[in-house]
């Protein structure tokens, strides 16, 4: 299937008919075949549950104990399936190494950086120290800033760089990079990908890049394997993928990508595949009836600082931030981690007391008419209650006066329908729902309280792209119904689709503000421009060239 099969002897890695089964014999990965030649980059693309991470673990010979691999995986001459751990152990490091997704759990918290690196480096004493410093500066960090620190003293971007240095310490012939930048901020993501790309060139190393992002796959790889539900959908040259892919599934994945340069008429993937949804529309078209310039929420000179524990410096999370939300409009707050965007949301919701400044609601609007949807759809629903119970609670809370069971049920059914869920979902429990379904339930619950303002804090950041689109369309429909919205996101493409105006937050300050279209099309501030530049374009140029910024000690990622 893969193009490398013509010259089996030259393959660095060849996977043939790989099958991963659980205890009950169900196949989680089935009939996966591809190969990687020396120095080549192959991207493994898929959504969550596609089996791409399990495939990588199987290749490293590191499947969890309750899973079994069958078929064949060969690192050069060594067969991995059924091999003794003692054999694989000596090859991991110099032959095959792996980088994982989450920089916050990647490194042993009890071990300082230098020791993590020393674990797989040769030599001792001054010689070893020199080698460690070299490896740290190879990943773009000044050695003195990281060497003696513990992982939890470093930012996510720094941790991932140290992880990369550790993974590459024995110059592996093949790196398995499992979503290496998904947990990082956009600007940090581009820097780390550029770093990986540069080091890969330098080492002549092959890479299996696992990603859910097609644009990252096309800019980094030579060949692409698309996976879904444990199997391969298609595999081939990167140009095939760039031109849209041959299979329906791949085309859906492409359609799910949100553009940053235009606003789409309909966000749902089906509508976009039709062509109708993909049509650009003027940016300020969503305001429902009554949309105008009357402010409904005014934030003035809002500052919030957090005292540090111990004797360290405090953190100025927000610095004199001001904004106005007009009735029926949607205001985007764009920022990376540490920008203060979540603190702003919490201050607006009254969950956090500002150090100075005010949050004013137009008279006549009660606090409970400001509702919220948070990022994590897994922790925002009580697992011991049914969906219907949680929603009924919201209806009763709002109504005050007792409503009949039938009235409550009807309202719940109608609201579930409006977020694209069947009324039967009311009888289900949170654990039986997918992330996207849960997030829609969370939106339904917020809507049942009939809010005037909905504050959304990264509502789709944890979701797959195709699911993102569905959830975002639900929010858009709510906007069209006249709901005012504060929409917090790090994703410029999402902001483009959901907001009328944006403010760009950087380290607690507003650096730029204006209508969404003009800010994103013609950014005035250097930081906004950098954010836009870090949106993956899918081109090779995106990944080539030097990092955009030299990484700071604690500020990036």
């Amino acid at each position: 299937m893969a193009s490398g099969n013509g010259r089996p002897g030259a393959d660095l890695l060849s996977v043939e008919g790989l099958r991963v089964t659980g205890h009950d014999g169900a196949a989680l990965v089935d009939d996966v075949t591809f190969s990687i030649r020396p120095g080549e980059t192959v991207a493994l693309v898929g959504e969550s549950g596609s089996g791409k991470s399990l495939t990588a673990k199987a290749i490293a010979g590191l499947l969890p104990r309750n899973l079994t691999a069958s078929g064949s995986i060969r690192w050069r001459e060594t067969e991995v399936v059924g091999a003794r751990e003692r054999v694989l152990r000596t090859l991991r490091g110099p032959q095959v190494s792996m980088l994982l997704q989450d920089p916050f759990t990647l490194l042993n918290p009890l071990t300082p950086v230098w020791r993590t690196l020393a674990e797989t480096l040769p030599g001792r004493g001054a010689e070893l120290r020199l080698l460690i410093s070299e490896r740290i500066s190879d990943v773009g960090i000044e050695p003195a800033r990281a060497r003696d620190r513990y992982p939890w003293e470093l930012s996510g971007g720094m941790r991932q760089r140290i992880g990369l240095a550790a993974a590459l310490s024995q110059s592996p012939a093949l790196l398995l990079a499992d979503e290496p930048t998904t947990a990082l901020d956009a600007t940090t993501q581009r820097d780390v990908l550029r770093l990986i790309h540069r080091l890969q060139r330098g080492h002549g190393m092959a890479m299996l890049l696992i990603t859910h992002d097609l644009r990252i796959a096309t800019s980094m790889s030579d060949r692409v394997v698309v996976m879904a539900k444990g199997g391969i959908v298609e595999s081939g040259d990167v140009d095939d993928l760039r031109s849209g892919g041959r299979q329906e599934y791949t085309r859906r994945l492409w359609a799910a990508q949100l553009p940053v340069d235009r606003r789409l008429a309909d966000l749902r993937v089906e509508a976009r595949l039709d062509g109708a949804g993909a049509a650009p529309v003027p940016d300020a078209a969503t305001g429902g009836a009554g949309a105008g310039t009357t402010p409904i929420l005014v934030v003035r000179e809002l500052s919030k600082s957090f005292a540090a524990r111990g004797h360290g410096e405090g953190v100025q999370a927000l610095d004199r931030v001001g904004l106005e939300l007009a009735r029926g409009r949607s205001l985007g707050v764009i920022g990376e981690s540490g920008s203060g965007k979540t603190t702003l949301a919490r201050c607006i919701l009254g969950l956090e007391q500002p150090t100075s400044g005010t949050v004013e609601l137009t008279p006549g609007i009660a606090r409970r008419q400001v509702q919220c949807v948070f990022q994590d759809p897994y922790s925002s629903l009580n697992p011991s209650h049914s969906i219907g119970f949680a929603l009924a609670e919201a209806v009763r809370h709002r109504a005050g006066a007792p409503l009949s069971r039938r009235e409550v049920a009807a309202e719940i059914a109608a609201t579930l329908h409006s977020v694209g869920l069947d009324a039967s979902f009311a009888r289900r429990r949170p654990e039986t729902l997918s992330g996207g379904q849960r997030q829609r339930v969370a939106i339904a619950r917020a809507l049942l309280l009939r809010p005037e303002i909905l504050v959304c804090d990264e509502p789709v950041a944890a979701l797959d792209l195709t699911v993102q689109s569905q959830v975002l369309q639900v929010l858009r429909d709510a906007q069209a119904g006249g709901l005012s919205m504060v929409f917090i996101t790090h994703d410029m493409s999402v902001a483009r689709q959901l907001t009328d105006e944006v403010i760009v937050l950087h380290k607690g300050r507003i650096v730029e503000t204006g209508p969404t279209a003009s800010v994103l099309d013609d950014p005035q501030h250097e930081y906004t421009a950098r954010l836009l530049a870090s949106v993956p374009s899918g081109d090779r140029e995106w990944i080539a060239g030097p990092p955009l910024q030299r990484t700071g000690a604690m500020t990036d990622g």
Partner: protein
Amino acid sequence: MKIAVWLGRRLIAIVLQLLIISFLTFSLLFLMPGSPEQILIGPNPATAEQLESIRERYGLNEPFLAQYADWLGAAVHLDFGTSIANGEEVSSLLIERSGVTVSLAIYAIVLLLLLAVPLGLVAGARAGGTADRVISAVTTMLVSAPAFATGLLLLYVFGVVLRWFPIFGFGSGFTDVVWHLTLPAATLAIAVIALIVRQTRAVAATIVRSDYVLFGRARGVAPWTIWTRYLLRGSSMPLVTSMGLVLGFFLTGTVVVERLFSIPGLGSLLINAVSTKDLPVVQGATILVSFFVLLANLLADASHLAVDPRVRKAVLA
């Protein structure tokens, strides 16, 4: 420098805690049934002159707080008076007995660590496997047997049948003491082994599934390093806290073992003193044991600082 501040604070806290304990202990004299002079003179009938001389000697005619101050002043110099039962200095009794108890407790802790931690690590690393099931079953069985039963069994098998270890006494000289204390220490260790195995197992099972162990293995870190620096060190943090509690238990809860192996320790001294209402001994032993327990907890917290850099930073920052 900062560590000195931390230690200073902890020592002050210990002193305050000891003061409270000493006050409660002193109050025992007045809380026990019977008049203080009758308690201090013992069970024999006493003449008026004898009672008066006791009152004089212990200052019982003075106000309560003054009496406490006097008693405390003496106690600071380790003077808890003389035993009512045999007239010996309480302090010398305590010193004699605590040597035995402390040796036994430390020996038991060492045995416990050597047995329970490796078993817990293996069970956790192979959670759900055969080794895990066997280890869990055996340790649970061991802990459900009362100490006198396991002690008797050990005594019978290793002392009487195999004759590897002596069946009673304390011995003299290091090797002889170790030889004499092995069975009693093993009895103590077995009493709590399941607790420590379970705890180690739980932490090790979490660590073994962690990203950083997976990452370590994927980049070629040696298995020995994974076992020691990742699993052992990671598991040792909750462990040191429970070790403080276990050590406290070993210092006070050794009566059964002391009786069984005829070892002259603090436990049996305390039990005898309580049953004969020998108040000065009870007071002295209570203060001493409290001191040991507080010290054991300080030791545990200090070890916690030593193994966990995050705690170190939080405490010393």
